[in-house]
């Protein structure tokens, strides 16, 4: 690497003085590894959402609805491009990351390993998953110490709002009909807890503290999970969807064992088996889920054909 990196002390001093980190010359090796990790998760999540949403968009009830869903897919591809481009500037091989990396090494949330099989599941994903994306990215936008990412997220933030509003608008439209609401409920039944889980290990078990120490983000996993529930639970109550969480004072309490065993083939949470350890969740995440290989292959197909 041609550019001399910063020492640990100088990096922390820069952050504490309120200056943004603009490039490799302002980073210590630990900062670089941390920002690469969080950027990779963000880039992979945006990119894998494209084939996941595209699959369900094909069940759109009208041409206009299909157009809206495809526009969301296009946004997600652009958001992914921003994050991969930043990784490239940090010396990462972008082509390898996108086109050559084995599917099992991708770093997106397990929820996107599940197939979205209908328009109902797509709009619930927009309302749940994109709200999660919004909470995570708006936190980065407001708090990150990495200047290039902060500036790029101004546009992303607004577009994610469109995606989650798209989901909410469709749910409001469908939910008054009991038959449609039943389909939305079936989607919410497996997707709600999968999104609760998305925010990761509880603060008490978190291993990578540099995300907060270095100011890559501002709020902890549990704070972000709470912020998500504070938006999603009242919305579900408004439209008549049951979700297993309720408000007690200033916090939301989960009404089912958490974490729990998830049966991916049935899209079913085995709450009857009680609470499990996070080590078992990490094992499921690491093994990846049903659509991982197919979605990654769909993204890599053109490259493989051309090379």
């Amino acid at each position: 690497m041609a550019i001399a990196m910063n020492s640990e002390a100088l990096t922390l001093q820069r952050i504490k003085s309120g200056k943004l980190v603009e490039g490799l010359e302002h980073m210590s090796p630990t900062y670089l590894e941390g920002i690469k990790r969080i950027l990779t998760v963000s880039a992979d999540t945006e990119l894998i959402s494209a084939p996941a949403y595209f699959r369900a968009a094909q069940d759109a009830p009208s041409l206009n609805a299909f157009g809206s869903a495809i526009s969301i897919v296009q946004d997600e591809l652009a958001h992914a491009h921003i994050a991969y481009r930043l990784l490239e500037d940090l010396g990462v091989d972008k082509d390898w990351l996108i086109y050559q990396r084995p599917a099992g090494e991708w770093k997106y949330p397990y929820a996107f390993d599940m197939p979205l099989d209908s328009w109902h599941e797509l709009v619930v994903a927009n309302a749940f998953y994109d709200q999660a994306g919004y909470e995570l990215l708006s936190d980065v936008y407001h708090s990150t110490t990495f200047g290039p990412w902060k500036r790029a997220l101004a546009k992303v933030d607004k577009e994610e709002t469109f995606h989650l509003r798209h989901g909410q608008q469709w749910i409001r439209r469908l939910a008054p009909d009991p038959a449609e609401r039943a389909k939305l409920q079936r989607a919410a039944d497996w997707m709600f807890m999968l999104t609760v889980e998305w925010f990761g290990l509880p603060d008490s078990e978190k291993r990578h503290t540099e995300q907060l120490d270095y100011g890559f983000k501002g709020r902890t996993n549990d704070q972000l999970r709470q912020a998500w529930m504070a938006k999603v639970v009242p919305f579900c109550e408004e439209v008549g969807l049951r979700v297993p969480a309720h408000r007690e004072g200033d916090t939301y309490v989960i009404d089912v064992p958490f974490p729990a065993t998830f049966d991916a083939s049935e899209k079913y949470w085995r709450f009857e088996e009680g609470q499990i350890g996070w080590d078992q969740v990490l094992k499921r995440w690491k093994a990846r889920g049903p659509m991982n290989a197919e979605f990654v292959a769909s993204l890599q197909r053109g490259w493989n054909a051309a090379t």
Partner: protein
Amino acid sequence: MTDHPVVARLWAALQEVEDPEIPVSLVDMGLILSVDYLAEVKTAKLRITYTAMGCPAMEMIQDDIRQRLLREAGVEQVDITVVWDPVWTSTRLSPLARRRMAAIGLGV
């Protein structure tokens, strides 16, 4: 009637309605072609367009317009007609819209 005193209030209200994907009002985006007010039926009557025929936010934009204008005193109905002539081009963007879009990295 385009010169009814309520019309100025409706334009001001529409300044508060943002494009769903860009932090710029529908007015500054150049999407609102005309605003009338029919006092006898308490109706706001709009002609609007979109930046493209494949605009993904058509229904959302109409919902947002209705929601905002129905909060105005004297408005009980909102009639929206979508027109494609004149064709929207970037020349319809206001200087404010251009500045805001440039600030978030959107070239026009």
